[in-house]
């Protein structure tokens, strides 16, 4: 007997309406603007209204924070004078202080904050876990250990950026290698990363213990994270890296959105999961390394930036741009605080972000859990 013929098995037509709806005029889905031709067969772009608002808000906040950053310090400057000085006008001293002292540091802060946060949100999406940021899974520490090696061990012959990159890749390979079998999902992978990070932290200490006190002092800001010890070359490299990395991340945005689902779902929707994961991982590792080469391990920004971005955005997509902007904002504010809070003593930015980020991390761990992290 064929099931199709059986009256009792026929689905209730009222409930499951099998008919294709007639074609209706094309409207953008709720919450989006659409750019493109009438029926969307050619070019058809969707722009989420909310994310436009969020990104503009963050950009304005970053701008204001930057002006404050340039104005405040051991010598407070009038914001109007600062803006004039940026254009090269006003008295020599102000122009020098703004353009030569504070602006490069501000740029370095924006770039590192953006890079850490972008790397963070990429890694979190990859591992489907909010705690899986490069700072927590040991990649920062790996990059730092190698960068410190280049400072204390081999003189200054090797560029810190290249060494940091080597270290970051080594740490990533170790963490992911050790976590095979337990998978990249879940907490065990993170503990493996903490272990790897602890080893590299110890290696850094070991190298600092071997050298003279002066070299050790020179390398110290590196171990806590500070914008003090940056070198011009590594900032430029980071600038290029962040620009390229951001474009690549934007290209990956659609895959990122789907990778938030389980691996099986993502494959079912036609994402080449392994290839995409590898690209995302590499991007995240490179961004982290370049940022560490400038500022040392300020990894907490990689946790806080994405958190802010997600809190502001809708769950429809992975807020890549918003995370980058938030990261830059957090970094600029944290360094501003570090420079001014106990002036003339300058607190390393890494300590400020750790004090802000620690409780945040605890809150994430303690908040009520869904069925899965």
């Amino acid at each position, binding site marked *: 007997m064929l099931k199709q013929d059986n009256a009792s098995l026929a689905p209730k037509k009222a409930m499951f309406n099998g008919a294709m709806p007639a074609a209706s005029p094309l409207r953008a889905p709720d919450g989006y603007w659409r750019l493109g031709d009438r029926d969307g067969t050619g070019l058809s772009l969707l722009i989420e209204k909310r994310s436009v608002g969020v990104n503009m808000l963050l950009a304005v906040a970053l701008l204001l924070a930057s002006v404050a950053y340039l104005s405040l310090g051991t010598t407070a400057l009038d914001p109007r004078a600062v803006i004039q000085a940026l254009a090269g006008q006003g008295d020599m001293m102000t122009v020098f202080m703004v353009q030569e002292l504070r602006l490069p540091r501000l740029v370095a802060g924006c770039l590192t904050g953006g890079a850490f946060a972008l790397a963070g949100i990429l890694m979190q999406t990859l591992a489907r876990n909010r*705690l899986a940021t490069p700072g927590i899974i040991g990649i920062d520490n790996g990059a730092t250990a190698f960068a410190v090696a280049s400072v204390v061990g081999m003189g200054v012959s090797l560029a810190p950026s290249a060494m940091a990159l080597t270290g970051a890749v080594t740490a990533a390979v170790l963490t992911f290698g050790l976590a095979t079998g337990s998978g990249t999902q879940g907490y065990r992978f993170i503990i493996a990363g903490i272990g790897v990070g*602890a*080893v590299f932290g110890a290696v850094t200490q*070991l190298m600092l213990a071997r050298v003279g006190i002066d070299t050790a002092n020179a390398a110290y800001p590196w171990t806590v994270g500070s914008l003090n010890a940056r070198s011009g070359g590594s900032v430029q490299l980071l600038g290029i890296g962040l620009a390229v990395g951001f474009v690549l991340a934007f290209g990956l945005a659609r895959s990122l959105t789907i990778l938030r689902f389980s691996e099986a779902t993502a494959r079912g929707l036609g994402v080449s999961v392994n290839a995409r994961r590898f690209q995302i991982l590499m991007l995240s590792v490179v961004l982290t390394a370049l940022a560490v080469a400038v500022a040392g391990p300020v990894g907490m920004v990689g946790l806080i930036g994405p958190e802010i971005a997600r809190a502001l955005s809708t769950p429809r997509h992975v807020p890549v741009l918003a995370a980058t902007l938030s990261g830059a904002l957090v970094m600029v504010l944290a360094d501003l605080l570090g420079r001014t809070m*106990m002036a003339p003593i300058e607190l390393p930015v890494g300590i400020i972000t750790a004090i802000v980020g620690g409780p945040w991390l*605890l809150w994430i*761990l303690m908040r009520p*859990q869904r069925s899965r992290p």
Partner: protein
Amino acid sequence: MKALTLTRRVDTRTLIVSLLTALVAVSVVSLLIGAGSVSPSRVVAMLLGADDADARFVVWELRAPRTLIGLAVGMALGVSGALLQAVTRNPLAEPGLLGVSAGAAFAVALALVLGASAATLRIPVAQMGALAGCLCVLGVARWRGVGNDPVRLVLAGAAFSALLGALTSLILFFDQRSADEIRFWVIGSLAGRRLDDLLAVLPTIVVSGVLIALLARPLAALALGERMASGLGHHPRLIRALIILCVALLVGAATAIAGPIAFVGLVVPFVARAFVGPDIRRTLWVSLPTGPLIVLVADIVSRVVVAPSELPLGVLTALFGAPVLVAVVRARRLPML
């Protein structure tokens, strides 16, 4: 647990005897070898009656106290690791990882800033800090079932430690005087510690030793679960509170002498369980010699490896402790203790 257990369990008594023998041997080596210019042969000659003032000073004033301190610190950390793991029923629980040591270090830094002198107040303050750290961690563990997942508890501990570490650095940053006073202490090490400190903590170590001896049997029952333990006529809450107190006293004492040293409390019970299985009483007995053995070996290595300077002990324990951490999480199934 199977994967981590040696196929044939060693007889506990034989094991302890061999561990003690090894410990004696290592202690002797610890007297013979060091960063100073006094070579092992000179030490042996001095011990055999040769008149060598340098050697006598180095051995009896520097290396002997250091060895004794290593023994005490190792015992305290190893046993408190085993206890903490039993109480939280979590094979990853470790005073260093869970923020207990960081709590002690932070408390000492805070006390210094508030005007205490390092010498007088360090020990009780460190013990209070360790207790506060313990209570925080256990509070977190009880909160919404975080403690049911061993790995999440460790993450919370790591976050807590990082936070306290940052706060400690903050304090050191804006108070240069205390920074100089405790900078060498904040990095865990056995170098340059004084025997007076050891004498000062001896009473608390003895008290906790007695408490632990009394509590070992009910603690073993607690491994069967709270209800089962109550059913057997024990008081789980009281036992747990007293054990926590012991852990705080021991970790506080060890940290006060040597500074924060991570991973010893993880490695020692891990090794002990591999030899004698999960029973807490046997684990404790085996931990007692294993802790000092590991600390002393690490300390000897730290003197030799970058001679003439020395490596902080905490660096070495992290170097071999972190792989153990990874090994524990890599085990197919985390053993529930």
